[in-house]
């Protein structure tokens, strides 16, 4: 009897604990999430929260100022939170049913959140919709819907250390415009301490060569895997040849975390990075003199990769109408030029291009890249495949390009099923 009583008591305690836990969860979870694609926007007096993943104080201050200015104009309260781990904090917000209203969203996270209905597809309701670069709009289009407004963008270009360049006897006329010229100057610049060209050993850099050869991992709207194309093989063969010649090294192999570090420490005379490198060099290596050039053309002409984030709006936000207004304000030419001045990215709207070029003459090659830039795959799970591809690229020097691309093709095709 004693045994039985205690067993009942145990069961009772656990039942009580369970009931408590479930009731606690119930208040946080919205039972039946509303559909993110429905047309009507929610509107209320609720304050907005903005969650950003900041690159540093400059970015935080700039976003804070812009949001505060909008807040005092519109009368809607809004506060900015800087995430320490953006992806994780976003996920927690979505599962609890109380996400941030407006947030940074990367291209590779878009598909995951869009497919589970966490995002509001508000792109078509933007008043400045037609002003965005079309390639950026397609990067943030999932399942035929334009989900979110591109916040800004970056492209890859070639950075050249002008002192090492002059020491090697090269002039402005030698700035490479083809692969052959790139190979030649890289060879000229390679010394015992310095390699001609150092880049990150990953798709986000090597992919530029694939674009120049006319290939990419997937087609423009990420509906078809094209990893095993002849063009991509040509590109990887070229990179492999330069690796084996010793004129190109991956940043990690010269003891640097990324191309910018190798370039700043003068371990390499050239690197391929995006416009974020300007801030990094200014802060950490102010003594390095450099110039920016467009990437050389490959067999299929010029090519580069573009990267972008967008302003996501949560489907569970109680005040979507105000959030949309905020996003329109943050993507206006005025705000974007202020952001650009503060922390470097390029405006995502075409109407701000002229002003930006006038302010940043030395960086125009980055903006020119917008014309021929290709996006990274956006299909759900693509980030994993790219990680796998990157891990294989690390051993490209001894690896077989065809084998690497074939396995990546198989992985991408599995995502499309």
């Amino acid at each position, binding site marked *: 009897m004693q045994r039985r009583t205690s067993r009942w008591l145990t069961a009772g305690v656990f039942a009580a604990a369970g009931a408590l836990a479930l009731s606690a969860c119930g208040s946080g979870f919205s039972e039946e999430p509303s559909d993110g694609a429905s047309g009507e926007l929610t509107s209320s007096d609720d304050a907005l929260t903005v969650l950003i993943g900041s690159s540093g104080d400059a970015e935080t201050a700039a976003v804070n100022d812009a949001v505060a200015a909008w807040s005092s104009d519109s009368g809607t309260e809004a506060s900015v939170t800087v995430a320490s781990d953006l992806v994780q904090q976003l996920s927690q917000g979505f599962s609890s049913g109380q996400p941030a209203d407006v947030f940074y969203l990367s291209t590779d996270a878009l598909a995951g959140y869009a497919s589970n209905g966490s995002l509001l597809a508000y792109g078509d309701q933007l008043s400045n919709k037609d002003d965005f670069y079309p390639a950026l709009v397609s990067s943030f289009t999932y399942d035929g819907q334009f989900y979110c407004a591109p916040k800004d963008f970056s492209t890859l270009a070639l950075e050249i250390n002008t002192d090492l360049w002059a020491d090697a006897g090269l002039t402005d006329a030698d700035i490479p415009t083809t692969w052959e010229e790139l190979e030649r100057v890289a060879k000229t610049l390679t010394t015992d301490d310095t390699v001609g060209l150092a880049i990150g050993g990953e798709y986000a850099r090597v992919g530029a060569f694939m674009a120049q050869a006319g290939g990419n991992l997937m087609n423009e709207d990420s509906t078809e895997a094209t990893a095993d194309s002849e063009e991509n093989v040509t590109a990887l063969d070229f990179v492999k040849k330069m690796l084996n010649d010793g004129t190109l090294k991956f940043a990690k192999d010269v003891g640097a975390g990324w191309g910018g570090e190798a370039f700043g420490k003068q371990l390499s005379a050239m690197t391929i990075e995006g416009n974020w490198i300007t801030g990094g060099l200014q802060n950490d290596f102010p003594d390095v003199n450099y110039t920016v050039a467009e990437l050389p053309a490959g067999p299929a002409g010029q090519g580069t990769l573009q990267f972008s984030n967008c302003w996501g709006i949560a489907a*569970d936000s109680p005040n979507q109408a105000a959030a949309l207004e905020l996003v329109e304000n943050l993507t206006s030419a005025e705000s974007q030029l202020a952001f650009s001045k503060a922390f470097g990215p390029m405006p995502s709207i075409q109407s701000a291009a002229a002003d930006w070029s006038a302010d940043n003459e030395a960086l125009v090659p980055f903006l020119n890249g917008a014309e021929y830039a290709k996006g990274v795959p956006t299909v759900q799970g693509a980030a994993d495949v790219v990680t*796998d591809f990157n891990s294989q690229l690390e051993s490209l020097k001894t690896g077989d390009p065809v084998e690497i691309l074939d396995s990546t093709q198989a992985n991408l095709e599995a995502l499309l099923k």
Partner: protein
Amino acid sequence: MANPTRRSSRSGIRGGEAASGWLFTAPILILLGLFLVVPVLMALWVSFSDWGGRGSPFAGSVNFVGFDNYSELLAGGGLAERDFGTALKNNAWYVLLVVPLQTGLALFLAVLVNRQVLKGRGFFRTAFYFPSVTSTVAITVLWLFLFNSTGAVNKLLSYIGVTGPNWFNEPAGIFHFGATDGPAFLTDNTALGVSWWNWLGGPSVAMTAFVLLAVFTTSGTFMLLFIAALQNLGGDVQEAAMMDGASGWQRFWRVTLPQLRPTLFTVLTLGLIGCWQVFDQIYTGTKGTPGKTTLTPAYLSYQSAFIDQDWGQGAAIAFILFVIIVVLTLIQRWILAERKVSKRRMRGYEIPPDIPPTGTPGVTSAAIALDAQNRRG
């Protein structure tokens, strides 16, 4: 009920004991239930569902998908299976190296600092224990600097004429000894999407650096456990063994170590569990690079759930890991279980009958002392 001798549980002065016992343990039971049992059960449900990470996992739109998440990991044939296989391979080698090394080193250090004659014992104990109380993140960052391609470790190696590897960027398995391609029967056969050649390749150079880190940080903790156990051992058994003429080496292996068996089990189990759950070093250090050779199931689970929004698969990885840990712990418990000494083994301790016995025939004084102690304990 039929038992006539049953006393009513309400009668007597002990009647309310059970109830008050439950009352006093209720706070912790509720806390554990709320923050441990319920979340674990929820995760178990998620691992069998197609929950996408939005809203409640118990909402009507979430479906039960049976073993889909598990079968994709264990027999899917795709990237998910290959990643899981790679993570298991990396972690298995990590466990295989870290657990024996850290246990051995901890025991060695404990025996050293436990000696009465050692000067500055307090200093050494603190020094050896210090890495254990430092945060993993700080030590990982320190490690990234030490094992940089131009870092202190490679500088030291260069003094003895060795060109150190680019530690955290070197995906080559250490047992491949630089070979890039194995024999066909190894490369063509795969288990969990990873070729036998890769399974046998051992941890990558990068993972080896993490192995050293784990041995460095956890040996101190386990040294403390061993010291406590060593100080609990009675001196009488040692003395008896000395009387029997056992050398220091024999006394350690035949007398001290067997008495440490419970502690050894604790240390091995804690080490095993900790090693299979390695996450913080990977998260702060390499995030699975180079070439996925530092990917571990715990990190993969986090990555699948939080980054790829594949919550079912993330939860499934966690539960497979749980099963692995439980099974390995049971195996270890079986290996370390006390068994009767075999006759063949016992013969070595028996006194040959032609020599007149001095004590109880066939049993040495050390064994008597040990026996007496067991009775007491």
